[in-house]
């Protein structure tokens, strides 16, 4: 079983790296959205610092939605998913591996580029530290919950807008707690509470969403 899951992860990563163009799209989108804000609201460091955490988090939400759309699409179209749901490996674990691979290939680059964007938006070192912590805890949550929404819209012709309609309301708590953690860091306050809540949400999602996603995949396969 372990070998099978390892092979699965290897396959996912290999597939992702073979399509470098698609891999880069969310990253470029992320940088572009964030560099639009200083142009839109003016280059004053104080304004930018104030809206910075919110801007970065909203951009992360949108960029990860953009990358997530094709999480199951190709595997659904070429019948791989159907085979997988018949194999001995539980579909829940397959889903978990796919989400992990997606996080490693699509979301981790966003995290790696984030110091640069923190500079763009004049975040202080404390704020950046808090931002990074919320990103590390929060983005896996995004991917897990997102996978459920993606599974529900897999196989639909016009899934893109629908996906945002389904998922963005669900991400609101994460956005609230993450930005407030960074705001607290800006005021030199403790933000352990917010991090703990995000971690709790992550664990809840880790426990529940793989089952919901696997079920949704079975539904769309008819």
């Amino acid at each position, binding site marked *: 079983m372990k070998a099978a899951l390892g092979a699965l992860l290897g396959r996912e990563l290999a597939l992702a790296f073979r399509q470098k163009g698609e891999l880069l799209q969310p990253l470029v989108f992320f940088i572009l959205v964030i560099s639009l804000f200083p142009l839109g609201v003016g280059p004053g460091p104080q304004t930018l610092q104030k809206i910075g955490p919110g801007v970065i988090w909203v951009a992360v939400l949108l960029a990860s939605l953009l990358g997530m759309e094709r999480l199951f699409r190709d595997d659904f179209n070429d019948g791989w998913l159907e085979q997988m749901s018949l194999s001995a490996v539980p579909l829940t674990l397959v889903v978990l591996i796919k989400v992990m691979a997606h996080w490693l290939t699509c979301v981790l680059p966003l995290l790696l580029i984030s110091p640069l964007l923190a500079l763009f938006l004049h975040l202080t070192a404390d704020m950046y530290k808090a931002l990074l912590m919320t990103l590390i805890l929060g983005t896996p949550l995004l991917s897990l919950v997102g996978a459920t929404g993606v599974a529900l819209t897999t196989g639909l012709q016009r899934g893109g807008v629908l996906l945002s309609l389904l998922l963005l309301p669900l991400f609101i708590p994460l956005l*609230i707690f993450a930005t407030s953690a960074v705001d607290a860091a800006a005021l030199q306050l403790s933000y352990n509470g917010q991090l703990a809540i995000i971690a709790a949400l992550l664990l809840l999602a880790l426990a529940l969403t793989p089952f919901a996603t696997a079920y949704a995949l079975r539904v769309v396969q008819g």
Partner: protein
Amino acid sequence: MWKWLHPYAKSEKAFELCARLLPWLSISAIVILATGTLWGLMFAPADYQQGDSFRIIYIHVPSAILSMGVYSAMAVAALVGLVWQLRTATMAVAAIAPVGAVLTFIALFTGAAWGKPMWGTWWVWDARLTSELILLFLYLGVMALYQSFDDKQQGGKAAGVMALVGVVNLPIIHFSVEWWNTLHQGATITKFGKPSIAPEMLWPLLLCILGLALASAALSVYRFQSELMRREIHRPWVQAQARKEHSDAV
């Protein structure tokens, strides 16, 4: 109880039950809702702080309560549909969602129309208003998901999953928004003095809640019947029913 309930999983029995319930539900809904509204608008005393503007309560509070009640009804139907694989239950999800969305819209709109004279603005990012707005998005998501499936069987199940995901998230969203709101602006405008409501004001309110609940039930039942017919288009009883209703209409 199962023995009694089980036949209603069959579509024809469910349709018959709905047909029997529908007239009672609609007539009592109209009578009670009209009584409650007229009583509230004409005979209930004016509020000593808010004057006559408080009469918006007779539509705002019922619709707000029911927007959440209807969501839980939809989630229960979704759960039943997913756990026991009952097709009729997933049809109920699809039938209930638009009713709930309209109730949520009414709650939001009347809230805004009440907020303008009382708080001086149409919209505040108040915790309850924001939660209600997100509730509307959740309803719209369920409806849009159902609409975009050509195979309504699949669509019903998918909408059911989405309804359940929403019901798990609703408390989290509500809690987070409440926390966010107190953090950002403090409860200054939203907590206007809330005197315990006088019985002359309370009775029409209770009537309005009951009436709107009955109206929502009647509409859901009616839409559920249509959904049943749409999905079981080839069954003989559906075709007989369609001929009957068509000749009634003509």
